């Protein structure tokens, strides 16, 4: 079957799929790089070396570095609880985890303004404490955490449900303690799902626009992330600058993808063995 050459019908379908993919994915990506280098390498590098661009890069990495581990731990804990135990309110928890997927990112940003803005419910309280959330890095992190909350949990819940708790129970009868069981049995069994969830979560954390846009206030050099910075530059007709910064975002995404493929390729044998089980 695998070595059979495609029939004319199949060939047409493959061609259609490839051209759609080329038109919708590859072409825009190529455009980004083309526009970025329109005025040569010098202009490109100058646009990247700009201090505000640098600060946007640092902020984007910082936000990802905070929200991804947070959501990885949360996702693991939530999936473990949901998949290995029966308890009242279980399906409510699953629905709550899905909520950030179903509401618009703008709303995910707006809730923080409603909560912590100057006129928000908790606004006066946190002002007294001297904490700023809105138009601040804290707000950017909170908005990103909320938007990217479901990625790891959603990846792990079906996987853990399918695996059941048999192996953990066996580990306990063999004398393993709870942490040993978690690190030597539970975690290795879900590491690929976890990795995939983390990569997706990371891509979204770095690329999130809507929610972050609402809370950040677009303060250059302070609360501007890469996607926000791209928009600002574009609105100022600095096309080379906008596309140059966009190439950094695209490159981060490509690195993420390459990392995933490399890991899958390197552990292909082990992956196949685990999936066949």
């Amino acid at each position, binding site marked *: 079957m695998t070595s059979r050459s495609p029939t004319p019908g199949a060939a047409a379908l493959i061609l259609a799929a490839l051209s759609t993919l080329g038109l919708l994915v590859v072409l825009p990506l190529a455009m980004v790089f083309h526009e970025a280098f329109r005025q040569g390498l010098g202009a490109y590098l100058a646009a990247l070396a700009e201090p505000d661009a640098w600060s946007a890069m640092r902020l984007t990495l910082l936000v990802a570095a905070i929200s991804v581990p947070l959501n990885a731990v949360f996702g693991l804990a939530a999936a473990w609880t949901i998949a290995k135990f029966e308890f009242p309110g279980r399906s409510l928890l699953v629905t709550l985890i899905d909520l950030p997927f179903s509401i618009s990112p703008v709303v995910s940003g707006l809730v923080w303004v409603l909560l912590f803005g100057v006129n928000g419910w908790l606004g006066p309280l946190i002002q007294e404490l001297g904490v700023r959330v809105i138009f601040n890095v804290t707000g950017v992190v909170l908005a990103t955490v909320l938007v990217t909350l479901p990625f790891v949990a959603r990846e792990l819940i079906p996987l853990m449900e399918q695996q059941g708790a*048999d192996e953990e129970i*066996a580990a306990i009868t*063999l*004398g393993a303690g709870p942490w040993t069981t978690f690190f030597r049995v539970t975690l290795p*069994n879900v590491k690929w799902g976890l990795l995939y969830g983390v990569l997706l979560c990371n891509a979204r954390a770095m690329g999130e626009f809507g929610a972050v846009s609402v809370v950040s206030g677009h303060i250059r050099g302070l609360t501007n992330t890469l996607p926000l910075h791209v928009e600002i530059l574009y609105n100022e007709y600095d096309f080379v600058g906008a596309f140059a910064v966009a190439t950094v975002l695209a490159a981060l995404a490509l690195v993420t993808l390459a990392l995933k493929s490399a890991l899958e390729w390197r552990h292909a044998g082990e992956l196949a063995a685990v999936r066949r089980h």
Partner: protein
Amino acid sequence: MPLIVANIAKRFGDHIALDGVSLEARQGEFLALLGPSGSGKTTLLRVLAGLERPDEGAVSFGGEDLLAMDARARRIGMVFQHYALFRHMSVAQNIAFGLEVRPARARPSPAEIRKRVDRLLELVQLEGLGGRYPAQLSGGQRQRVALARALAIEPRMLLLDEPFGALDARVRRDLRAWLRQIHDETGLTTIFVTHDQEEAMDLADRVAILRDGRLEQVDTPEKIYESPASAFVFSFVGEGVQLTGDVADGVLSVAGWRTPAPAGTPAGPVMVSFRGECADMLPAAADGLPARILTVSRRGGSSRVTCEIGGQIFTLEAPKSLTTPGVEVRLAPHAVILHPR
């Protein structure tokens, strides 16, 4: 070290899983827990393993209170129906797991662990397969790895939860004999859960029969088969004829047949049971229980027939001579077993 289970009760919500079960097992005994699904046998096994906490009752092993210890401290080897092997570990790593998770002072050296793993692989006849992953093994091989893994911790007792339930008939039979052999070699007290009466009767020193969370009978396979404590036990452990009857004035009436009741039988409604091999099949003119042959399947020296007695259908072994579909015959049991109903 005897295992003593006293008056164990366990409910899940409204469902009573175990309703006051008391049981003993001798050191080195092979005990089967037999019962239909939902009879509580797996719950009882999980209580012994420490995976389930009973609502009432006590469990002691060699004088030690097992319920006071959590599962990981009990050192009880457990084998599961669906193997529960660690899928991301090789066979050797699976077997070594119980030794490697011990605290540093109780953990054997890596060389010692390797040696023990090799010895166990040999015991379960899987030499040379230590590097394989569970997914690369057959069901029978996986279950042997699971047993080796359970034996690696040098357990004080071995619990098996329907270990052959997921295997095909042929592999089951082979593994059965082999399991008994391993048991005899290790001398471990072994508790074995199954819903397959043939498996239980074949393997065990004694069989405990559970029904709806209660113990119906604990006895040797012969006793269970020959003198079942209840009509349920009779029907659960083998094929036979079972009919409602009545005893009055020393006479047993069953399906239109009247015969002297065994001496000392109290009067009243009874369940009448006998095995097919304990009855003669006679021509219609003889004295006996009226029966009509429905179907015949011939195999070897005897035939298996289904016949209708008193409006119910039973399957029996019978001699060839009388077995033609549609023929009326008389069944004359040598002895009947009566239980009050």
